[in-house]
Each structure stands twice: as C-alpha cells, then as structure tokens.
C-alpha cells in the first residue's frame, strides 16, 4: 500500500483539461500496489497467487486483480495460467505506472478490462531458463453497457486492448562464464515485434566482466490509441560494459552506448527525411571504493547526437556511523547540457546533496535528503526529501 500526497504546486487546482488530469492522479492518495495470497511448492508441484499482483516479464510490466497458478510437470516443464481484471483507469486504487497509456479521456479508458493468459516455462535446469507466454486484455461490450461512448451512444463496442506473445530465455554456459539472455515480444494487435532485448555476459574471471546489451523497442499503447499507428520505426540501443575489480574493495568500469533512430519517407505525402538514420552515442567511466564504514563512487559520462549533448559526473559517498544504524550520504552532481532543438536550453547544473538514512528499528528506515542546486537559470534552489519506510513480512510456515 502506498500513501501519497503532493503538497507542491502540482496539485493546485487548474481550470483546464490538465487540471482534470492532475486531479485524476492525485485525487487518489491511497494505492494498493499489491496484495495477494501466495502459495509455493504445494505438493512439490503447484505455485499460486491470488489477489492484486503484478508481473514483470517479457510480456510486460503490469498489474492485475486475479489469480495466477503454475504447475510443474515432468520433463522440466511448467504450465502457467492467469486471469483477472487488468489494473487500469477503472480501478479505484489503480497505480498510474501500470495503467494502459494513450487513451486519455475516452470511454474505453473507463472500461472493465478482463485479461487472461497462459505460459509454458522450463524449471529445474542448471543451464537454461526459458518461457513462452501469451496474454490478452479486452473490454467486452457485455460488461461495459453503462458507459457512454464519445459519440453519445450507450455501451462500448467490444475491443481488444492488448494481445501479446513473448518468448524469453537465459543461459548459463561454460561454468557460468558465458551467460546469454534475451526476450522478445510480438504485439499481435499492431503486428509488430515491439520489444527485443538481447544480452551477453562474459565473466572471464571473478574479477573481469564484459556485458553487451542490445535493445529494440517501439512505444506501446493501448490498442484503442491511434498513437500505435504513428510509431513506425523502432528505437535501437547497443551497449557495452567492461568491469574489473583489481582489489576486493575497488571496482572500475568503462561503458559505451550507441543509439539508432531511423526515419522513413512518409507514405501519404512522400516527404523524405533529411537523414534516414540519426545516431546518439555516449560513454562513461566509474570507479567505486567500498570500505568498512565508508564507500565512494565516482562517475563521469558524456552523451551526444540525437536529443542533444550532456556531459557530467558525480561523486557519491556513504559513511556508516552509530553502530552502522545511521548512514550519512553526500553527493555532488554536475551536468552540462546543450539542446539541439532550442538554443535557450543550454547551460549547466550543479547539485550538492546531503542526507542520512537511519535504521530506526528492524524494518523501519527513515531517509532524509536535501539538495542545494545552482544552475544557469537558478542562482539557488533547495529541495528536501524524506521517506519513512516500514517493511515487514509474514509467513505461515517456512
């Protein structure tokens, strides 16, 4: 459960469409983020969850109210089935993060959206993990008869909000030295492969590691949204990271990144882009030291190309005092930026952060962080942040 309130100007009443949106978000100050009953390994075969839960996987990151069950069968296979109501705009305590996007203000936004899905996965193998899953979310007319559609008619025509198939795998080969992994998602509604992730981690030794990562995405919206129609070219991102630990307490890292943005000649008007391929490139380096009571981390990075230029760095430290119950945090962060679209957005920003994180009791933490900021546009700005966290868990039987 999350209690939420913004005391800043963001919740100040407005008199336009934006005000309605703001109220839609912050009018709900209690979010039940997840609340479920879980059973594990029942009869050495069955796992289940019942209640509000969310899943992160190759399918998506979403929440639903319902049930999920997995049965492990011979041959290292497991069968999954799940179903319920997707958490979206209709849910009183819906979490905006997980709501479908792109259909703000339409009747479909308020529709009940049942969902169901199934999956097959591997289990119990030391060298590979894999899963294929399917999910369909739809808003049937039969349960949405009371909605008034945009054209004034009563009831909403049936429609599918999302229908996706995903496949994912992770391998562990050569004694753990080679770990490839990947996930892809086919959006059956848009007919596009809208999410692909592929990675390869090479752990040469316990001290040297290389990771390559490729990401290809198309923005995903509810199938009610016409935004899906406009998203034609996928965004691609390739990353390479190398990390070494010359000493147990010291880590060094270098990384590089290349981003690809493609444009196509428009079909209707035949307008060609100035460049069919635009690039963004960047890199960075980090060093970290972890002592008995003190740790520090130094980061530097630069990004250029599409979007603009950013170059900056930060130094983070944490010092433990008071029998390790109180952590003192300090950070200095600076960035120079230059927007390629508007010359007005050029400048620097420097922030000094000081704070603490106290363990008040087992499971209860208080974090306070203050930030003083100097920028091209602000001679001085201050903000203070605090979070009280209570985290306990219960279990009937180990």
């Amino acid at each position: 459960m999350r209690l939420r309130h913004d005391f800043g100007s963001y919740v100040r009443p407005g008199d336009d469409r934006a005000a309605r949106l703001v109220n839609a978000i912050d009018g709900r100050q209690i979010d039940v983020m997840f609340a479920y009953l879980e059973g594990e390994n029942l009869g050495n075969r069955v796992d289940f969850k019942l209640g509000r839960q969310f899943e992160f996987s190759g399918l998506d990151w979403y929440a639903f109210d319902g049930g999920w069950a997995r049965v492990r069968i011979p041959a290292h296979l497991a069968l999954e089935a799940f179903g319920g109501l997707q958490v979206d705009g209709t849910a009183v305590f819906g979490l905006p993060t997980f709501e479908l996007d792109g259909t703000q203000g339409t009747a479909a936004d308020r529709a009940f959206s049942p969902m169901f899905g199934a999956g097959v996965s591997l289990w119990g193998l030391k060298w590979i993990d894999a899963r294929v899953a399917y999910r369909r979310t739809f808003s049937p007319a039969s349960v949405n008869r009371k909605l008034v559609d945009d054209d004034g008619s009563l009831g909403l025509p049936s429609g599918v909000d999302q229908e996706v198939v995903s496949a994912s795998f992770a391998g562990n080969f050569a004694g753990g030295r080679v770990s490839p992994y990947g996930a892809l998602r086919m959006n059956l509604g848009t007919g596009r492969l809208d999410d692909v992730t592929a990675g390869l981690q090479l752990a040469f030794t316990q001290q040297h590691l290389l990771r390559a990562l490729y990401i290809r995405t198309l923005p995903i919206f509810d199938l009610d949204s016409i935004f899906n129609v406009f998203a034609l070219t996928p965004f691609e991102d390739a990353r390479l990271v190398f990390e070494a630990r010359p000493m147990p307490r010291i880590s060094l890292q270098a990384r590089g990144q290349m981003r690809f943005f493609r444009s196509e000649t428009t079909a209707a008007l035949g307008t060609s882009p100035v460049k069919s391929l635009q690039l963004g490139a960047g890199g960075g380096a980090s060093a970290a030291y972890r002592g008995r009571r003190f740790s520090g981390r130094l980061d530097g990075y630069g990004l250029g190309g599409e979007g603009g230029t950013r170059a900056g760095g930060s130094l983070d430290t944490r010092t433990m005092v008071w029998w390790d119950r109180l952590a003192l945090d300090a950070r200095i962060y600076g960035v120079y930026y230059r927007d390629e679209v508007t010359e007005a957005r050029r400048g620097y920003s420097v922030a000094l952060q000081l704070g603490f994180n106290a363990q008040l009791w087992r499971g209860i933490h208080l974090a306070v962080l203050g930030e003083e900021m100097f920028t091209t546009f602000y001679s001085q700005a201050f903000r203070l942040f605090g979070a009280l966290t209570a985290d306990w868990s219960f279990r009937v039987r180990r």
Partner: protein
Amino acid sequence: MTRHTITTRQEGRGQGRSAAVAGVMLGLAFGTGLYVQAGGGLTVGEIPATAPVTHGPMRGGSPVYPEQDIPLRFNHGQHLGLGLACARCHTKIGESDKVADFNFPTGAVCDSCHGPQHPRPATEPARCGQCHTRLSEGRVTATLRAPKANLQFSHKNHLAAGANCQSCHGDMSKVRMATVLQLPSEASCLTCHDGRKASSRCATCHPADTNGKLATRSFSDRVMPALVPRGKSSWGAAHDLAFVEDHRGIAKANPSLCAQCHNETFCTDCHAGAVRPMRIHAADYMTTHALDARANTQDCQSCHRMQTDCLACHQRLGMGDGPDAKFGVGSSLRFHPIGWEGPPDSPQSHAFAAQRNIATCASCHTEDSCLACHATTSAAMPGLNVSPHGPGFAASMRCSALAARNHRVCLKCHEPGDPRNECL
C-alpha cells in the same frame, strides 16, 4: 451556495475520509508489525532499495562467511600427521545439525594432550603462548571470533549421507591454520547439489527471509557484504556499477532469477516510489529532462504514464494544443521549429519525430492533435485526410490484425462504412 462550493466541500469530505482510511490502515500495518516483531522475530525488515545501499560500505569477509579473527597458532598437518582423527578435536561435529553450533575445539579438548591449562591449576606453569598469539603480560588479550556462516547446514546430515570431512574441506594435511579458505565453496557444494543427488534450490543452503525470498543480507546489517550475483554464478545478472541502467535486459529475460531475492517492493522503491526523484533525477532535471526524453536515454515510460504524468504538467505550462496553449502555431513562443508541420510540400519534420519516438509527442498532445490532420474528412472528427500509416498498410496483415481486434481505433479516423475500416 454555488455548485463549485458544494463540490469543494464534497471533495473535502472525500479527502477527509480518504485520510481517515489511510490513517487506520497505516496504524493497522504498524501495529501488526510491532506486535509480531515483539513476539518472536517472525518478520525481517528489508532495506529500501537505493543505489548507495547496493554499493555502500561493507566490512571484510563474504556474504556467506563473515570475517573471522582467530588469534591462535595451529597446524592441522602436524596434528593429522600424528594420526589424530578430525573428531578427536572437533568432538561434537557428528551431532552438529545447525550452522550456529560452535565446532571449534575448546581449550579443555586441547588440554587432553597439552596438559591442563583451561583452567590452569596453580601448580601448572602458564603456556598460553604455545597456542594463543595475542598476549600481554602473560594474559590472553583476544579470543576467537568466528561469526556463524550465513547458511543452512547440518554436519550430521552430510556425514549420514556418506560425506567425509575431506569431501567439503579438502586435504587438510598440508594446512596450518584453517581459515575460510578451507570452508566449502559454492562450486564444490554444487558437485553434489546438482538437483539429482541433492537439491539445487538456492534456499536449500542459503537462508530465506520470512517472505520466502533469499536473505541477501544478514538481517538488517547494512555493512554486511550482500549476497549479490557476481561473476560466474550471476546468470547474466552481475550487479556491477552499471546494473541500474542495464537491469531491464535480464529482468525481462529471466524474471524468476530476480524474484529469488527481490519482491515487488524492491522494484517499486525506484519505479513507483520515493527513491528516484533525488537519485535518478538529480539537479535541474526539470530543465534537462527534455533531452533525455528525445534521446530515449532513460525510458520514461518505465515509470511515467505519458497521457497523465507528462501531459498534465506540460499542458498546465501551456504546451500541446489545449485551451491554455501558449506555444502553438502563430505564437511568438512557438515551441516547434518552422516546417514542423504544414501543407504537403513543407518539410513535415514532425512526421519523423513521431515515427521514431511517438512517446515525446504523447507527452504534450492528445489524439485530437493528430486527428486534426490525419482523420479522413468524413470521419466523426474531420481532418485533412493525410494518412500516417506506413507504406503498404492497407491490405496488410498489420491492418487486418488491428481491425480484427479493435475496431474502435479505426473509427477515430474513418467513419463507419468507410472501406478503409476493412483494410480495403
């Protein structure tokens, strides 16, 4: 009394009820936690997920074998060379069924060969320095400190299953003082714990919290080295310095791996919680976030909903094409450059931005902005009939896939009866 006043009062009462419900639920949560906490340690707190904690200070040792301090001199090889069996000194090892058992030889056991020193009779000369290394004025100043390993382990069960000391601890005949180096490594455990001879589930050996997840830290000890994936045992999830930026790959590919240690709270601490504003969006991110959004550097959608979070704030600032728009066409504050949109022979720059990153458009504009030009002229919201579909969309599999699943979206641009609704 105006309608506005009534509405305001109703909203006020609604907010008051919400606050009361929130207070009761928070009180129940705290009260229950305190009750159980006081009643026998059924619960374990989890440290909020923050980057500094992940890479924060740590003391020596490993997350499994905490740092030991053994101020003794001892030679295993010498003792084994005399033909002594391990159990001669480690007397209780055969009955030890938990890792908290103290299995070091006691001084009294040593006395059986070395003469009475624990306790030492008045007539017996002190020979502390024969074994103890830290002495001052003939007195021992430091004793053995060997915190229990963070494992679930039973010597008794392993011996009963046929293992012997050498199976796990190796050849001790050439070892002087035994340290954590003589404790079994994960690799040696897995030679038997292969899923057939013995269980290969992580929680078989590694302690689990009350919520069923692996205990990555020793309770709430924040400087205890954390049990994090590293090197060859990481399955592609090595928690290196760039893992915050790169974790989406392995999280999608192998979510069950993440779920062995992390629950939902760990994810929402950053993605939907309070940690990110100061850490991920440091300094003047309000000014610089536009660069990241256009460059897709950080996937905004992993935390923010475009049509609520982004749109609400942008429209209040006058962006987009809402009633309060201040940066639109004809304004001296025009946001988009000349040639962004316009008649057919204009550069149409917006088309390419929409093709490659529609999310940035959706952060300021609603669908109405698009419909103004892209809808067919006879649709419910007539536009200029400029098709945004890519080449060959009509009669394509993509068109029929969408039309078959959700006709509502087609009707936003095309009126009922339009053959384009049927992909013709």
